């Protein structure tokens, strides 16, 4: 059998392709992005970057009800966006196998939070969840999930964490048969697919939501029975009365930690929710203490506590609820410390780590060198400062304008929150002018609702659209304003000017590299009544350089040391990483190895010292 060294995300896509998935829909988000991109190479699969995760899950559900296999792919924050449809499809069930991938980011390495999506999809929506410990297991789980989804009529959720998605390992490739992609076939099933408060005659006239809720509750025991025999749950025998439970990736950290001591602890490896209760009880019955390792909330820990309470077991159960840290990503060190805490006599061959004895400054992210967002943020900052305005920010590369040195945006929440929050502040009677900044992909995701609302409510704000024609933050995924789709085919492109006009807002268009016009336009917009949409269009510099598209005439610049007086304007207000402040000379110099010759700093320097 062929084996390939691939990313966990590619393994997940492969698993779905081998399962004969016909429709795949998602919205980009780290750590899940590469899963959907992985479908492009398989003919017969329709894969799409949907406008947002709710749309993606609805597209996948529609395909499933048309009796083909479908998959929806998103990160945890995205699954939040899809909650509304999730809370309906759990009641209706599915037809063709439906799998939802909800990738988590413990530690919040590339996210706005480090939430545990198992709570949303399992505790809240009552859907079965598979939690892989490795890329190979994730692939096996995808295949199993499609089978079980059709067997149980339920949507199965797979929750890989960042370290599974972004791991690289040798993955076995099994047969991929494009002949499996037969077309869909719709079969009406109104008893299920019409989720409305209508009376169910056969059940004494209770309303359909209650009837379907009853169906969902009854599914729990069926799922639990499946878990007992699941290849993803197993017991490894050991010695002593302390047992370790490894959920998903937590299992691998236990195995890694176990190489550092000679004692062999009993291990319960869990990969399914609901947990297999019989198996869990068999594991716990002769133990005094159990330590559960899971990402990132005490979900399984609490289920085990409940199980012990119901069965009169007095075993102590520890885990994320405080025995070891309740926040942050699991590490082998964390696991070792927790085991040592439970067994103080344990001899551990500890890691011999020697850190450097000087302080190592943190490295925060910023815009890339040459990025048009930096030029735009610089001008928004000038205008906002002059007008004493407040800037509401949104998700995207431009959100780094909220950090030092610019500290421009006052808020960064979730996709599309900038415009409505600015609207709210305006109607709160805020005396300062309000600005909102949003990216193009975010506008099509959920931002557009806020824009329509701002116009409809007659709010007063300047909306700045940083339009770089791609979803840059996650690695250049096209969207409804790109003019191309996932397959790089030419597709209809939203006309932003007409969109603004249709919504009823004033529209200005600027080139963010044109510093002077951008400043004047923003200033004018800030002085006008109503909602003004300022569209600042320039392709993402990084994407353009990869495509060998020139966005500006290269301008070789250097600093004239006689003229530079160390005023720091270029550092504080512009902050290009190629500008380096030399604290001893109190001068700025340009790092020629990283400068991309955009020449913007030459315009920004008030003393004409750069040129």
């Amino acid at each position, binding site marked *: 059998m062929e084996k390939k*060294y691939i990313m966990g995300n590619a393994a997940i896509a492969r698993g779905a392709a081998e399962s004969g998935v016909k429709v795949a829909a998602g919205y980009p988000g*780290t*750590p899940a992005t590469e899963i959907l991109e992985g479908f492009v190479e398989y003919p017969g699969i329709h894969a799409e970057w949907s406008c947002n995760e709710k749309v993606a899950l609805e597209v996948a559900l529609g395909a499933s009800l048309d009796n083909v296999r479908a998959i929806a792919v998103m990160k945890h924050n995205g699954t939040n966006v899809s909650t509304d449809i999730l809370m309906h499809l759990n009641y209706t069930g599915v037809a063709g196998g439906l799998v939802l991938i909800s990738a988590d980011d413990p530690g919040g*390495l*590339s996210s706005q939070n480090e939430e545990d999506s198992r709570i949303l999809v399992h505790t809240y929506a009552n859907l079965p969840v598979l939690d892989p410990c490795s890329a190979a297991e994730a692939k096996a789980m995808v295949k199993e999930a499609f089978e079980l989804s059709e067997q149980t009529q339920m949507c199965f959720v797979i929750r890989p964490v960042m*370290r599974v998605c*972004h*791991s*690289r*390992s*040798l993955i076995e490739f099994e047969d991929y048969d494009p002949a499996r992609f037969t077309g869909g076939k719709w079969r009406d099933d109104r008893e299920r697919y019409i989720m409305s408060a209508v009376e169910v005659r056969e059940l004494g006239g209770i309303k359909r939501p209650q009837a379907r809720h009853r169906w969902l509750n009854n599914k729990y025991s069926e799922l639990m029975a499946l878990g007992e025999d699941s290849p993803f749950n197993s017991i490894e025998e050991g010695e002593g009365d302390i047992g370790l439970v490894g959920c998903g*990736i937590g*299992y*691998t*950290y236990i*195995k*890694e930690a176990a190489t550092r001591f000679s004692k062999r602890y009993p291990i319960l490896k869990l990969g399914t929710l609901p947990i297999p209760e019989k198996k869990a009880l068999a594991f716990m019955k002769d133990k005094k203490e159990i330590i559960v390792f899971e990402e990132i909330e005490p979900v399984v820990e609490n289920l085990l506590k409940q199980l012990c309470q119901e069965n009169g077991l007095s075993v102590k159960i520890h885990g994320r609820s405080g025995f070891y840290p309740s926040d942050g990503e699991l*590490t*082998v*060190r964390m696991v070792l410390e927790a085991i040592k805490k439970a067994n103080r006599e344990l001899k551990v061959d*500890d*890691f*011999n*780590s*020697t*850190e*450097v*004895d*000087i*302080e*190592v*400054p*943190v*490295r*925060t*992210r*910023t*815009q*890339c*060198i040459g990025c048009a967002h930096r030029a735009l943020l610089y001008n928004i900052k000038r205008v906002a400062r002059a007008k004493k305005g407040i800037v509401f920010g949104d998700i995207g*590369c431009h959100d*780094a304008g909220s*950090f*030092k*040195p610019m500290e421009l945006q006052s808020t960064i929440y979730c996709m599309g929150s900038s415009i409505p929050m600015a609207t709210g502040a305006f109607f709160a009677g805020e005396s300062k002018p309000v600005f909102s900044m949003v990216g193009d992909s975010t506008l099509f995701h959920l931002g557009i609702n806020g824009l329509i609302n701002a116009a409809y409510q007659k709010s007063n704000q300047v909306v700045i659209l940083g339009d770089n024609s791609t979803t840059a933050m*996650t*690695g250049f995924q096209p969207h409804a304003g790109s003019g191309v789709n996932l397959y790089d085919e030419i597709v209809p492109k939203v006309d932003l000017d007409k969109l603004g006009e249709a919504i009823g807002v004033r529209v200005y268009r600027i080139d963010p590299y044109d510093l002077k016009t951008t400043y004047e336009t923003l200033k004018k917009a800030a002085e006008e009544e109503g909602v003004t949409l300022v569209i600042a269009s320039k392709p993402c510099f*990084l994407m353009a350089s990869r495509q060998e598209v020139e966005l500006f005439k290269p301008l070789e610049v250097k600093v004239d040391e006689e003229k530079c007086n160390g005023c720091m304007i270029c*550092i*504080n207000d512009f*902050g290009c*990483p190629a*500008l*380096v*402040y030399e*604290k001893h000379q109190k001068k700025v110099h340009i*790092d020629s*190895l*990283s400068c991309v010759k955009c020449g913007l700093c030459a315009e920004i320097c008030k003393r004409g010292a750069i040129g």
Partner: protein
Amino acid sequence: MKKDIVIAGVGGQGNLFASNVLSQFAINKGFEVLGTETIGAAQRGGSVVSHIRISDMPVFSPLIPRGSADVLIGMEGLELLRNMGMLNEGGYYILNLYFVPTVYSNLGIDSYPSKDEIISAAKRTGRNGYEIEATHKAAELGSTQMTNVVLLGALAKLDGFFEFESMRDLVKLLSPQKFQEKNMLGFENGYKLI
């Protein structure tokens, strides 16, 4: 036999390519390989760290525990220091003498250590190390983008595990066609730098 390798740098230095070459090399030799990297914010000047685990035994966690890496490649000075604690007692590091200031150091909030401070802080941990000017060599050869292959060349010279010929072949094989010749040249020059 196990070899845990950490490659630490900043976005845009070609960390992932270097990690792929090393992984593929070990796979070709029949070892178990498991890797991971922090990406996402990497293209915007953040830190990028790759972990590559090579072993003749099963490997479980893609993350190398702190204090157990055998090799640390610091593509940038500060990122080397940030990851020095990854090395085990017998581990060694390769420091690329290239320094990218941070936002905070530019603002004077943090102080970016001098080249000498970085070299001596690394030495004080007691680990063996080598300093090379990979980025400068790459620039001399035509592009700083070749920093990664220059460092791989240096690694092939320092570590008997990584054979020169087959590593060079892999550098060629895994490079986009138009960079193949340049990357091989970079690799050979890195080998000579030590």
